[in-house]
């Protein structure tokens, strides 16, 4: 069977802050929706707190782009015994997240060279 041609991660750039944060949250492991939301709030120091609708709209988009995938349903041992849908990042999603991190790092380096933006 012929393999699908590898997709260029640069096609997906730039990512929206929410999409990037979801990918970063999933790099750390499989998570369900609420855990992703908590992780985003923690990593952005409360600056990004997506609502449930926006979160699942973004997740839907990432699933459609094959950047993440569903990892089945199971209960969260820390919350309760209700089954939740877990998500995990795909290899392609990791490449895209790395490319986005590289893009942001390059932007940061360039910004720091500007007068008045140098780090202390």
């Amino acid at each position, binding site marked *: 069977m012929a393999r699908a041609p590898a997709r260029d991660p640069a096609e997906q750039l730039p990512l929206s802050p929410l999409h990037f944060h979801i990918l970063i949250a999933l790099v750390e492991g499989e998570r*369900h*929706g*609420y855990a992703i*939301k908590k992780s985003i709030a923690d990593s952005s120091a409360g600056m990004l*707190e*997506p*609502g*449930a*609708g*926006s*979160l*699942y*709209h973004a*997740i*839907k988009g990432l699933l459609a782009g094959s950047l993440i995938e569903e990892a089945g349903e199971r209960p969260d041992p820390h*919350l309760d015994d*209700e089954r*939740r*849908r877990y998500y995990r990042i795909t290899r392609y999603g990791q490449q895209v997240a790395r490319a986005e991190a590289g893009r942001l790092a390059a932007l940061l380096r360039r910004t720091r060279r500007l007068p008045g933006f140098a780090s202390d």
Partner: protein
Amino acid sequence: MPRVHAFLLRIACLVLPASFRQDYQREIMLVFREELSSRSGASGGAIRVWLSLLPDLIETAIREHAGLFKSDLLLWLRFVGRRKAFAAGLIGNFAVSIALASAMFSVTYALLLRSLPYHDPDRIVRLENFPAVLAQSNPGVVRDWLKTQKVFEDLAYYSPWGGNLEGEDRTVRVKAASVSGSFFGVFGQSVLLGSDFDESSGAFAVLGEQVWQDVFGGDPTVVGRTIRVNGEQLRVNGVMRPGFRFPESTQVWTYTRGDETLSRLFEEQQAVFTFVAARRESSVAPPVDSGPEISYPLAERPPGFLSLLVRVHGNPLDAVRPIQQAIRDEAPQATVFDARPMTEYVAESLTSHRLYALILGTFAILSTATSIAGLMSVALFYVSSRRQELGIRLALGASMFRLTSLVARQGMPLLFAGVLVGEVLACAGGRGIAALLAGVQPLDPAVHLAVSTALLLSGILAMLICSLKVIRLDPNVTLRAQ
């Protein structure tokens, strides 16, 4: 999570597209539950969770619906690109159906269904051939009788005539009517611009909306100016609302108030005719010193008879007998006939028009039914042409609800395009019909909305029925048939 929150959240989630709800509503509810429990200790925690959730849900709904619309539109454009003749046929069929049905129903509605544009038309009695001689021979008797009667709420007279209205750049022949000051009040009508007849002296005119547009170009400054009708100078007091043309498509209503008293006019024989119009409320005693409301010397138009309009309390037919009796008592030689409620009078004058409207309405219903049948055939062709795609979707586990809603949703742009083109044609055609038939509104919103909605719903129903027909087949059979 408390049941009330779960119930309210399910209701709130209805703004989201069905497909999104099916995939993510349960997950959204779980996130919401955790949010609620994490803020359960804080005061107003639940309210804060709701206040952050609702705008977010609405924003998500807009994005999701926009995304669905975009993908449907792309699919539709691809489909139309492949089947241009089919799309043009569907849109054309739909457009012509809407245009024809709107035009035919506009006429039918105007003549058969719409009530008269007067306030309580069934309480207005029209007395034809009221003898002017009665008023001339003994005006005091008529005036006193009108003062004492308790049946009328309002009373007016009119006398139609024709005249040449001199505009700024041309003179047109118009139908006019000399009316009493209470004329518009009897009909419960108010003017579009200016005022109707006021209490000051002089000769006034109120213009019809059509003549105001045609002769004066809809210029609002015409109010207060002096116009000439048959050489007579009249000050324009106002412009009447569109649709009011009584009697007989009148476009200029004139009214003269003299300084003379009624009795002086008769004594000096200055008036060829005069009449008294009085306004009486049954519960209010008439003022003792109430004088004549109008007097109108029209030497050049000697009338033998007037038409009298009476707005009555209760049953109009009950008022006819006392009027006839009073006239018989005072003028045995006079015979007042044709005393009928306004609705009956108008109904009779429209008998032949109504017959045509009935025939036209029947044809309109038949043509609409034929259009719907044609629409069903086109819809069946549209759905059948997607048989293979629907079969694949069905085989992959798509529910019947999703497939039927998909077909209906994707057919919608074609139907909407048809409605749009049809409405443009109907409006253009309606203007032509309105120019030919008085009282037919080219943009009658009730008719246009009803016709467009009926055909649009028929189109959607046709799509749904046809898609169900295909989807109910075994997917294996459907796929094998290709």
